[in-house]
């Protein structure tokens, strides 16, 4: 599943799955449906691209639980929640955990499709950042974290027990690999990535 336009529909109601997949496909997306959270966990990996439309109330593992599990497994897919009976506490919790949106059934077609588009774009971005950061060596990762935290090269060198010059070389590599043009941009990339890693 490397298609960046795949929308994973996870809902225990067959009619809902069928209708949503037909709608998404009519809108030009690829839809993949799952009856339970467990079925989806079987196929997804940290490299999976796309976004998820997730039912809140499901037998077995419910929507919010699946969201937590995905974070734990470092699967950075954006999630759109769909609820039959939305309640405020659940909404707040899911949004805080990084859900794109929390929609209530029956959702307006255009709202849903806009949400899907937003999620896919974000997912792509996160995925690319993830790929770029994945190219960093362990030492470069350390240097980036300290640099983003606002430490000078000298301080970074002292902390890691390497020379000022070596720090400069690592920083150059980090900027190059992430495609960031300045420290601020690097910080934004690092933040965006971390946001999807830390529950």
């Amino acid at each position, binding site marked *: 599943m490397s298609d960046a336009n795949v929308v994973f529909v996870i809902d225990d*109601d067959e*009619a*809902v799955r069928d209708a949503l997949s037909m*709608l998404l496909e*009519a*809108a030009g997306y690829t839809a993949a449906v799952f009856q339970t959270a467990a079925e989806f966990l079987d196929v997804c990996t940290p490299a999976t691209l796309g976004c998820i439309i997730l039912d809140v109330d499901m037998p077995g593992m419910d929507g919010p639980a699946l969201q937590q599990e995905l974070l734990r497994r470092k699967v950075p897919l954006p999630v759109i929640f769909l609820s*039959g009976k939305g309640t405020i506490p659940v909404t707040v919790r899911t949004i805080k955990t990084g859900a794109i949106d929390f929609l209530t059934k*029956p959702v307006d077609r255009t709202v849903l499709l806009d949400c899907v588009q937003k999620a896919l774009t974000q997912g792509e971005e996160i995925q690319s950042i993830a790929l770029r950061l994945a190219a960093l060596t362990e030492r470069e990762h350390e240097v980036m974290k300290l640099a983003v935290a606002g430490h000078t090269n000298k301080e970074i060198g002292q902390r890691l027990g390497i020379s000022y010059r070596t720090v400069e070389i690592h920083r150059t590599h980090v900027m190059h690999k992430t495609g960031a043009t300045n420290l601020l941009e690097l910080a934004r990339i690092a933040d965006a990535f971390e946001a999807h890693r830390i529950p």
Partner: protein
Amino acid sequence: MSKRPDENSTLRAEAEARLAGAQPPEALALSAEVMLHELQVHQIELEMQNEELRRMQLTLEESRDRYVDLYELAPVGYLTLTDTGMIAEINLTCAALLGEERQRLVQRRFSAYVASGGSDRWQRLFINVLRHGNKESCELAMQRSDGSSFDAQLDCLRKEMADGALHVRIILTDITERKQNELLLRESEERLRAIVDQVVVGIVRTDLAGHITFVNDRFCDISGYTRKELLDKQWQDLTHPEDMQNSISVYKQMMQDGQPLSFEKRYIRKNGMAVWVSISASRLSDAEGHVIGGLAVVVDISRRKLAEDALRKSSEEIADLYNHSPCGYHSLDKDGIIRQINDTELAWLGYTRDEVIGKTTAADILTPASMENFWKSYPLFIKRGFIQDLELEMVRKDGTTFTGLASATAIYGPGGHYVMSRSTILDITERKQLERRLLEYRNEMNNLLNLQVAAQTAAAIAHELNQPLLAISSYSGAARMLLQTEKPDLVKIRKAVMASEQQAQRAGKSIRELLEFLSIKEFPVEAFDLNQEILGVLDTARSEHELKFHYMLHLEAGLPQVWGNRMHVHKVLLNLLHNGIEAMQQAGVPSPSLTVTLSSAKNKGFAQVTIQDNGPGIDKVDLQHLFEPFFTTKSKGMGMGLAVSRSLIEMNGGQLWLEPQQGHGAIFHFTLPFAI
């Protein structure tokens, strides 16, 4: 008769005085004349002497006569004995006493009349008197010559006669009567003493100062002292210090006015212990009416006092309990007037005891409505003799009311007539308030519950409708988007439209089910064969489910028909079978099986159906909510199934319940009444 010298000289002087008066002294100049004078004086002296003698003779004769009379007729015997014990003189009285003529007695030996037992004593006394001249007395039994005897007292005195002979004068008194009286008195005293000593009361006599002069044995017992010890004491020595003042004033008063008195006091016994006594005291006077002391009859009442103390304590205790009981007590006479009431009820009513006793009636302390209730229950109360838990609104003095719960007992007189009632009142105002608050609270809870049920219902309806609505919305959206393309995919569009239609139907079905649950109307009932019904439903269930399950039937043959609505029972059976099958399917049980048992319930008159699956069973948490509406563990359905099933069975007079067990599948039971 000898003349004393002073008498002679007086005589001479008087004679001289007479002569001088007859002849002047100057005339006595001559010796003859002196001689003559002397003779004349002497003559006159003699004349005077004769005159005197004559007068004396007369006086003597008078005196003798008087003496003889006195002597002879004295009430006592006089006799004179010679020194040899012979009777010299004896008066008539004594002769009569000795039963002889006087003449025969004179010159007889007196000792012959002394009874033989007293002879020695008499001889000793006689010699004693003769020898020493003392006045001696003795009592002697005398014997007459005819053999009869009498008791006499002899008072003896020695008399020396003119001739120097010694005589003994005796006064002899007949004391037979006195002796007999003395004997009688002694006997009676002894009898009295015996009685006095044997009586159960203590008897004590005191003199004026209070010194004890007599006690009986019982008094010794009571006081703990011996008779000897008591006779050295005053009654004051025995009296308890705390009772002293009162005792003294009582004693004084009695001594003053002579009225006998009864009172109670304490003595201190010899051993130091106090003893309660009841005293009846009276004043004692001698024959002349002089007050000589007091007499008291003393009864030991320690035991009675103890009993009284115990009784008083116990009645105090009862009074205390009566008055300070947490409930009210009162007694009404047959006219409904309060005759007795305790402090608690008085405090409730706000009256004082004086305001109520004998004045207040039931009507005064009850509201008119409660009074009516009171009269309504009255006849039964009189007939049965009691009444319980009559709720009455009671009116306080200030006009406010409180709720009392009354129970009363009727008291009947000897003739069986109702005389009074005794009532217990509980102030249940607080209880009433509590009940009211509880009711309010319950209503509030019901409201909350209703609200929650409404919210749950709304949420369930929302969920149940939102699913098909989302599907419909999505299908139609897809169809619309497909139609907007250059080459619309008609197959897809048709599919979307058809699916849309189905979802609309699904939404409609949910609503119908809900309405069915919310408004269950009257239904027809009939007698039918439950066995047949079970077999039919099982067939339906098997045809509707893909799951192939094994089933066992234990249907009791020859069971009577049941009574109920056939459609209801059908629905319940189907629902329970569906639940079991779906649970097994959802859990993926390797070899699904259902057991349906039909039997006569333990509770006679009912048929019992048991349906057991071998699915995962019911979760403990779910158990609590199992029969609540909208509770479900299934992906499909509204959670109305069990709630509806239970209410349907209950409407048909049966019961539906889950057998609590875990891990071995769910076991549901329901009962239905037999038709006969």
